[in-house]
C-alpha cells in the first residue's frame, strides 16, 4: 500500500472522528471536506478512491448528519449547487455562451412542482390538489422537460448574439422569470406572487428515513447522474461541437457543426439540470417564493463555475462546494468569532474591539471577504481551482 493510500485512509478516518468528537466545530467539518478533496486528488488506486468517496458520502456524511443536522443541510445545498454549476458549465464552460440568468431555469423547475404539489393548484384548476407525494418523481422529469423547453425558448432569440450582448439578454430573461413569478398572482393566481407557495408535498420517505437524510441521498443520486451525463456529453461529438463553437464559431460552422441545433441543445441540457434540481428544491424547502431566484443566485452559480475552472466537471463540483461552504460556514463562522472577540472586549494593539463603531461590525465583512477571495482567485489563478484538462486519447498504435 502506497503512503498516499495510508494518508488518504487516515485523513478520512481522523477527520470523521474529529467531527464526531466536536460536532459543533466548523474546522472539524472543513477537515472532513479537505480529506475528501485529498482522496479525490491523491495518487491512489481508483478502487480505493471510489471506495473511500463512496463510504464517506453514503455512510459517514449521513452519520455526521446525526451528530449535527446542519452539516447535512450544508452537504445537501452543496449538492444542489453542484448540479446547477454542472448545468451552467455546459452552457458557459463548454459552449462558451455567457448566461447571466441561469437561475431562471431553477425557478421554472421549482414552480412546476410547487404549483401542482401544493393546494395552490386548486385556485387554478378547482380541486383535486395537491398531488400525492409520489408524483414528485414523475415531476422530476416534468421539471426537466419544462426547463429544457424554457432553455430552447431563451436560446432561439439569442442564437446570433455573443459575449456582452448575450449576457445582457440572458440577464434580462432571468429577471423576467423572477418578475413573472412575483406578479403572476393576477389575473390568474399562478404563482401566488411574493407571498410564495406553501406547503409543497414531499415524496414519501422510505424506511422512515428522516427527511434531512432522504433529501441528501436524493440530491447525491441526482448529482451522480448529472456528472455521468455531463461526462458522456463532454466526451462525445456533441461536447466537441460545443467546444468548437466556443473556440471559433465561424470555423465550427464551416467544419459541419450545425450551429443552431448545437446551441439550442446546450441551452436545453444546461437548463434541464437546473429544472430537476428546482423540483427537488421546492419539495425540500416546502415553501418557495421569488426571493430564492434572484440575479445574485445566477451570479453565485457563475462564480462557482469560474472559481472551479470553466469547462471542468470536477471544477464545477469543487467550485459549488467552496462557494457554498464559504458562504454557509466559513465566513459566517469567521464573523461569529470576530463578534465574540468584540463582545469579550479583546484588545488588539492596545485598541479595544468593543469600541468598534457599528459600521465595522464583523457580519458586514462577509460579502467583502468573499469578494476579495474572488478577486484574488482571478488574479492568481484565472483558470480556476481545477481547470479543464484536455483529455489525452488513448492511441495505442502511436509511438510516443
Amino acid at each position: 500500500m502506497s503512503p498516499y493510500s495510508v494518508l488518504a485512509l487516515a485523513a478520512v478516518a481522523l477527520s470523521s472522528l474529529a467531527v464526531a468528537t466536536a460536532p459543533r466545530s466548523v474546522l472539524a467539518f472543513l477537515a472532513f471536506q479537505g480529506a475528501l478533496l485529498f482522496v479525490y486528488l491523491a495518487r491512489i488506486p481508483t478502487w480505493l478512491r471510489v471506495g473511500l468517496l463512496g463510504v464517506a458520502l453514503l455512510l459517514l456524511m449521513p452519520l455526521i448528519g446525526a451528530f449535527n443536522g446542519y452539516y447535512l443541510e450544508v452537504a445537501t445545498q452543496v449538492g444542489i449547487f453542484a448540479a446547477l454549476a454542472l448545468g451552467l458549465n455546459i452552457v458557459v464552460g463548454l459552449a462558451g455562451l455567457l448566461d447571466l440568468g441561469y437561475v431562471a431555469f431553477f425557478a421554472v423547475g421549482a414552480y412546476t412542482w410547487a404549483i401542482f404539489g401544493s393546494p395552490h393548484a386548486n385556485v387554478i384548476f378547482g380541486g383535486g390538489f395537491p398531488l400525492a407525494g409520489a408524483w414528485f418523481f414523475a415531476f422530476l422529469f416534468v421539471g426537466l422537460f419544462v426547463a429544457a423547453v424554457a432553455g430552447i425558448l431563451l436560446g432561439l432569440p439569442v442564437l446570433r448574439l455573443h459575449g456582452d450582448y448575450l449576457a445582457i439578454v440572458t440577464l434580462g430573461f432571468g429577471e423576467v422569470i423572477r418578475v413573472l413569478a412575483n406578479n403572476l398572482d393576477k389575473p390568474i393566481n399562478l404563482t401566488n406572487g411574493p407571498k410564495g407557495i406553501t406547503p409543497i408535498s414531499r415524496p414519501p420517505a422510505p424506511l422512515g428515513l428522516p427527511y434531512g437524510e432522504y433529501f441528501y441521498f436524493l440530491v447525491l443520486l441526482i448529482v451522480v447522474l448529472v456528472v455521468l451525463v455531463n461526462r458522456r456529453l463532454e466526451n462525445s461529438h456533441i461536447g466537441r461541437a460545443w467546444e468548437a463553437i466556443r473556440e471559433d464559431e465561424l470555423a465550427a460552422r464551416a467544419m459541419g457543426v450545425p450551429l443552431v441545433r448545437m446551441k439550442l441543445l446546450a441551452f436545453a441540457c444546461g437548463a434541464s439540470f437546473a429544472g430537476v434540481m428546482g423540483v427537488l428544491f421546492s419539495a425540500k424547502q416546502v415553501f418557495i417564493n421569488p426571493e430564492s431566484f434572484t440575479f445574485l443566485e445566477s451570479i453565485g452559480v457563475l462564480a462557482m463555475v469560474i472559481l472551479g475552472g470553466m469547462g471542468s466537471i470536477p471544477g464545477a463540483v469543487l467550485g459549488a462546494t467552496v462557494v457554498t461552504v464559504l458562504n454557509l460556514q466559513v465566513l459566517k463562522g469567521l464573523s461569529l468569532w470576530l463578534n465574540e472577540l468584540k463582545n469579550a472586549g479583546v484588545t488588539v494593539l492596545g485598541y479595544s474591539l468593543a469600541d468598534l463603531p457599528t459600521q465595522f461590525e464583523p457580519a458586514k465583512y462577509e460579502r467583502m471577504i468573499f469578494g476579495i477571495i474572488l478577486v484574488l482567485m482571478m488574479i492568481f489563478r484565472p483558470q480556476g481551482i481545477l481547470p479543464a484538462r484536455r483529455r489525452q486519447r488513448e492511441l495505442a498504435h502511436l509511438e510516443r
Partner: protein
Amino acid sequence: MTALFAAQGVTKRFGGLTALQAVDFELESGIASIIGPNGAGKTTLFNIFTGLYPADAGSIVFRGRPLLGLRPDQITTLGICRTFQNIRLFANMTVIENVLVGMNARIALGLWDVLSHGPRFCRTESELSTRAVALLDRVGLQANANDVARNLPYGDQRRLELARALASEPALLLLDEPTAGMTQAEAGALMRLLRELVVDLGLAIVLIEHNMRVVMEVSDRVTVLDHGEKIAEGRPREVQSNARVIEAYLGTRGSGPRRARRA
C-alpha cells in the same frame, strides 16, 4: 456532362462596394488556383462557396445540387470543406480533437446514443479515432495528436487545418493560402501531398495562393480575379503571359508596382 462544381454569375456587394461581379467558376477535377491582387475578392468567393456569406446574385451547383441558401454545415455535409487564410483552428483543443470536430458532418449518432454510451457509440468513437490518426499520419502530425493546437508551430497549424478539412470527407477542398508562412521546402512538400490527395482520393482542390512558383507548378488551371472580376482563366502558361494579368499584378506604366503579396 455537368461539372462537379459550377458557379455562375456570382455577385457580392458590401454596401456600395462590389466585391464580386458576375464571376463564373467551374471545376471538374484536379487542382485549380485562384490568384489575384489583394482585395480581388478571392476569399469572398470562398466564403460564398461555403455558405458563410449569402450571394447577391448568381447560382452555384455542386454535384447537381444548388448550394446558394444552404447553411455552411449543410454544404460541408454535401462534400465541400475549406481552410482559412488566417488559420482558424480550435486553439484550446487538442490536435486530434480538431480533426474529430471536422468529422462532425459524418457522424450519425443522436443524443440518446451519447447518453446511453451503447456499443454503437463506442464503436463509432473508436472508428473516428482510428480515422483521425490516419489523417494526422497523412499530414505528418501523428506524433502531436494529443498536443493542444495553439502550441503547434505555424506550418504544423496549416497542416492541421488541412487534416481537419479532410476529416469531413470532402469531394471538393477549398484551401485559402495553404503555404502562407511556409518555407519553399515546406510548400513543396505540401503541394506533393495535395497531388497525392487528388490521385488517391479523387479530390478536386481549389487553391487561393500568392506563391507563384507553387501556383504554376501544381495547378491544372488558373483563374485570375481583379477588383471582383474574372480577368483571365486557363492553363498556368497561358495566364502567365496574359496582358491583363500582367497589368493587374504590375500596374500600367507610370502607376508604379502594385503589391502582389499580402502586407
